[in-house]
């Protein structure tokens, strides 16, 4: 685990140094080197462990996410991908809940021209709505397709009680305007592990809601951390079960593990 992480750190460091050198921007490298995984392991790295054997594909996580974050139509933070395997009668449906992977070496943050999307000290990849110019480069770069651009759709023509509720995202309690182009309209939006709940000691809405107790959440860098929803020891889950991460060969080092 730790070796690839170190390698990624070095690669990213070199990339930053190379680019900074090319542009002759002095002082650029230190700012980048201060990012979590380029040196010592940060104390906190929030992550999810999703038990695919338990997932029944009910999509309650996706619904809870919508309700929690007041996402407009056409914007989804977490979804459940599904696939039919085999032919009748030997057939089964596969489900993979797909929140943001909150990669340790994300491909979105390095391409963002304004540092609007950034990785926080706790490993959560967040978007600064006031800084995002809406260029959507991060969407093109994200191999997991977890990012969504807020095109400005509403569920109803005239405002309803639901749509005029402020969204608690990033603890800002911001009302989304119903017309015009004020943030977060015209921004790229994404799953933020319900950071407004996590900082209060709660779990992400999807994990709390899951009817099958399939979504575990906690600090992956703490060897003794327990799942904040169900209390299992996270390290124990990973040590005793077969697990995988999506598109691991791309080197993004996702913080979402799937138990298979």
């Amino acid at each position, binding site marked *: 685990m730790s070796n690839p992480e170190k390698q990624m750190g070095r690669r990213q460091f070199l990339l930053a140094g190379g*680019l*900074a050198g090319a542009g002759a921007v002095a002082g650029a490298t230190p700012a980048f080197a201060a990012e979590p995984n380029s040196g010592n392991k940060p104390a906190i790295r929030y992550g999810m462990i999703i038990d695919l054997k338990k997932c029944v594909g009910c999509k309650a996580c996706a619904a809870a996410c919508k309700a929690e974050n007041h996402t407009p139509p056409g914007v989804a933070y977490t979804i459940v991908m599904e696939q039919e395997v085999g032919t009748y009668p030997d057939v089964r449906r*596969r489900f*993979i809940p797909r929140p943001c992977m909150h990669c340790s070496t994300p491909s979105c943050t390095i391409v963002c021209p304004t540092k609007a999307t950034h990785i926080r000290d706790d490993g959560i990849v967040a978007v600064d709505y006031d800084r995002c110019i809406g*260029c959507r480069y991060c969407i093109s770069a994200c*191999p997991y397709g977890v990012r*969504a651009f807020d*095109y400005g*759709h509403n569920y109803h023509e005239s405002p309803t009680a639901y749509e005029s509720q402020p969204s608690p995202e990033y603890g800002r309690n911001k009302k989304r305007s119903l017309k015009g182009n004020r943030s977060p309209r015209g921004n790229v939006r994404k799953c933020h592990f319900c950071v407004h709940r996590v900082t209060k000691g709660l779990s992400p809405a999807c994990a709390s809601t899951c009817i099958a107790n399939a979504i575990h959440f906690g600090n992956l860098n703490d060897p003794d951390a327990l799942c904040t929803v169900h209390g299992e020891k996270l390290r124990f889950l990973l040590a005793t079960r077969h697990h995988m991460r999506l598109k691991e060969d791309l080197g*993004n080092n996702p913080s979402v593990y799937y138990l298979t």
Partner: protein
Amino acid sequence: MKTNNNGGNPSIRAIGYLVLIVVTAVGLWEIASKFVNGPIDEGTTQLVTWGIWVSGYIFFLGLSAGSFLISTLIYVFGVKQLEEAGPAALVQALGCLLLGGLLIVLDAGHPERMYMVLLYFNPTSVMAYMGLFYNVYIAIVIAEIYLVMRPGFVRNVQSGKRPTWLYRVLSLGSTRLDPKSLIRDRKWLMVLGILGIPAAVIVHGGVGTIFAVAKARTNWLGGLFPLLFIVSALTSGGALLTFLTAAFSKLPRERKVKLVSSLAQLTIGFLLLDALIMFADIFTTSYTAIPTGASTDKLVLYGPYRWIFWIAQVALGLVIPILLVVIPATRKSLGWLGLAGLLVVIGMLGARLTLVIPPQITPLFDMSLGVYNHVRYAYGYSPSVSDVLVILGAFAFGVWMMLGARKYLPMDVEIEQGAQQGGQVTS
């Protein structure tokens, strides 16, 4: 259709202007509506996030970088047979740069925040460097245009050509026409040209790199894209210059034919290299048949984009222009050579569309997204009416710029005796 401003039937010209005015007005309306309503009318989806505006952006930026690099052949490398195309190449570089800039600013969800790219510059973002060098590059192009046209402006002020105030402003108070000042202009042109070469290459190669490092899209990823972008920039820049020179230059006929055929041959050379890179790209992804890459090739070669690829890119943009420049019956004709240039430009526009859009269409996972039936999660991409109107508007702005430049700017500067000597002195 709107290009015959020298002579021709007045009623056809009136219709041309009418169409141009209508398209311009509609384009302006759509641009204003984008600023007021945001991106809601755009046709892009959550998967195909970059549509025809981004294609248009790289199309115009390519034209600009290519035209500029061709101008450096003249002002830096002293290629005398292209000399008379210099001012047009620079004006074209500026005009296309502005049109590209317009489209990319509009494409952003928050166009009013573009300055933040420089304010919160992210040193690991290729796009941030592109933003920076876009500004450096535009400054260099403007400065070069000034230097190349200064004698013309001064002469217009002295001869009292209207609007005199315009030439007085444009000449920035300069009144000198002596050989020494022309030699000085020429020297600075060379210096700026030398600085401009890396700037143009970084801006357009950088745009290629933006795509090349977008990890999620197999067909963009890799080392070919930056090169392809630079070569196709040169191709399209040369092609547009061929077309516009053939159509509008007021040079004496014999010199014009010579100039246009030099430009056309140069363009075809770049075009062949461009086709080679394109072939290498498609060949490797088709041959290796890694699903994400091969599915894009299928969309382009046999799928919904096959018309753009086979007709616009291959037939119009590659085969016919090469024939026109090679066949003895057409290779000395201004009309046919100009057409060859125009066809290459059309082919390039097609190439921009197939380069940008199909690689985004194939979903990132071979699974259904399950929850979502919203139009923004639909498969495929078709531009909205508003998207198309803005693109047409941009082309209309381009026509206005070209007409304005031909009318008011000294585009066909005769080679100055002094400058010629200066060129020899400095080279």
